């Protein structure tokens, strides 16, 4: 007998509204309906009423966590239109801010995943380790989130030289903490039992759904816009694309943890280069950009969740004539359609969260019996509780062995 469990559109623990309806047969999920569009704000149209220089402020508010990636992709698009290359200094600063963002975003995800399976210690730890990253971002850009750093032709401000030792110190500490977290995930038998072989999205399915970012790389599907499109400074820096094979929730966590190390490596190299350059002048930071001629440009950047794509067209005016944005979660959320099938309800929350959608859901969960129309309502807390109870059960049975 198939029942439906709506999840959404509000979720007590985070972010944007989103609506899933699980069709369940007993404990097994047999189908899922996904409705998005709750936070539709019409940003693309708004952007066409802002000047070229104002748009970065708007697009960084597409998503609070990817608030470096969207403006990055946008300025790359305009620079593609103009066919200019920004100064080396600006490229390094861009990479530093973007990678700091990746660090705090991945830590945030690991924490939430921990919360979902009932490891609240992981949640608290990750968010604690995330704070120093935000402090550095505040010192470098002036704000904890929404950095306002990117600008067509360069960046808005320099990384202060006196901050560089602080950045290094923070990175060294974070490296140790991240190491500890990674080992904790790799070693814990309960986490293995809860996440291995759960929500598998293999190479072929990644390809079919056009999965992006860590979701795809966990399944062995090798995409990374920073490498594939030779974004700015990334071409000359020494870093690797992290790939796993199985595509389950475990691998998605591992990919993100290992990417943190890569991000730290990238920031270290950029900081070294900046230090060698010494303090810069205004001309080093941003190119003089006059009129934007008619034409069109594409910008692609690898956000923490996958590839962000921006397209702009100009008719020679002072505003974009068309601005198209595509965020990675759009592809990734749809993969849930496949990856939750045939897993237990208790795993569904974890699987849908594993793609790190800019995800958010429920003020309540209601179950509908499709035959009798009988309906009962559980709170979203119950869904998390269900998941946490499963962990507890596994933990107990492992201890019994």
């Amino acid at each position, binding site marked *: 007998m198939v029942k439906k469990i709506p999840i959404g559109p509000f979720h007590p623990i985070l972010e*944007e*509204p989103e609506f899933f309806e699980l069709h369940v047969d007993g404990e097994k999920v047999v189908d899922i309906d996904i409705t998005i569009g709750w936070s539709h704000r019409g940003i693309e149209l*708004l952007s066409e009423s802002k000047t070229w220089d104002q748009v970065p402020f708007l697009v960084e508010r597409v998503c609070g966590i990817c608030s470096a990636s969207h403006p990055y992709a946008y300025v790359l698009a305009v620079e593609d239109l103009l066919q200019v290359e920004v100064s080396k200094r600006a490229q390094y600063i861009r990479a530093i801010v973007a990678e700091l963002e990746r660090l705090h975003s991945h830590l945030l995800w690991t924490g939430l995943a921990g919360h979902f399976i009932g490891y609240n210690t992981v949640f608290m730890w990750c968010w604690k380790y995330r704070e120093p990253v935000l402090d550095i971002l505040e010192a470098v850009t002036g704000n904890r989130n929404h950095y306002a750093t990117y600008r067509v032709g360069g960046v808005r401000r320099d990384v202060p030289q006196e901050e560089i030792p602080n950045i290094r110190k923070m990175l060294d500490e974070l490296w140790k903490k991240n190491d500890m977290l990674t080992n904790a995930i790799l070693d814990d038998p309960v986490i293995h039992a809860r996440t291995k072989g759960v929500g598998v999205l293999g190479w072929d399915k990644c390809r079919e759904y056009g999965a992006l970012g860590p979701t795809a790389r966990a399944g062995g599907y090798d995409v990374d816009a920073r490498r594939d499109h030779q974004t700015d400074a990334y071409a000359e820096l020494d870093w690797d694309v992290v790939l796993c094979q199985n595509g389950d929730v475990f691998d998605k966590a591992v990919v993100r943890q290992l990417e943190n190390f890569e991000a730290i490596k990238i920031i270290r190299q950029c900081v070294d280069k900046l230090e060698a350059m010494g303090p810069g002048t205004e001309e080093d930071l941003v190119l003089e950009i006059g009129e934007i001629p008619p034409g069109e440009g594409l910008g692609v950047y690898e956000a923490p969740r996958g590839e962000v794509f921006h397209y702009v067209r100009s008719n020679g005016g002072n505003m974009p004539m068309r601005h198209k944005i595509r965020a990675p979660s759009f592809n990734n959320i749809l993969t849930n359609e496949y990856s939750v099938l045939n897993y237990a309800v208790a795993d569904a929350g974890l699987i849908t969260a594993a793609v790190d959608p800019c995800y958010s859901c429920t003020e309540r969960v209601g179950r509908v019996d499709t035959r009798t129309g009988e309906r009962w309502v559980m709170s979203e807390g119950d869904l998390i509780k269900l998941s946490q109870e499963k962990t507890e059960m596994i933990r107990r049975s492992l201890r019994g062995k």
Partner: protein
Amino acid sequence: MSLALKALKKSPWVFHVNTGACNNCDIEILDALTPRFDVERFGIVLVGSIRHADVLLISGPVTRNVLPRLKRLYEQAPKPIKVIVVGACGCRCGIFRDGYNIIGPVDKYIPVDAYVPGCPPKPETIIAGVVKVLGTL
């Protein structure tokens, strides 16, 4: 002071709604609960259901799709409830004011007790907002 208000003041339970925010405000709200700020020390807890809430934290401009849900949430909330709007968006729609799918700030639809400005407000500011509202009780 009624018994209900007295109880509310001791340990306010918070429910948080995103009415179309960019989710940064929501992250900062969550951030206030984690070790650096740790408001749980004072009995401030994020709850999973509106029916348990004493304080409603709302972030984001109200989008067309979300409005019916927001109204229903407010109706379901046990009264007295304190409504705090977090972020420039919720206060005055912020940068999204001219969007075609944005139908106005939160206080156009439900009564609001306090506004916390900022984009996003820092966790300290959010906590200060909650404390100020409790101080008025």
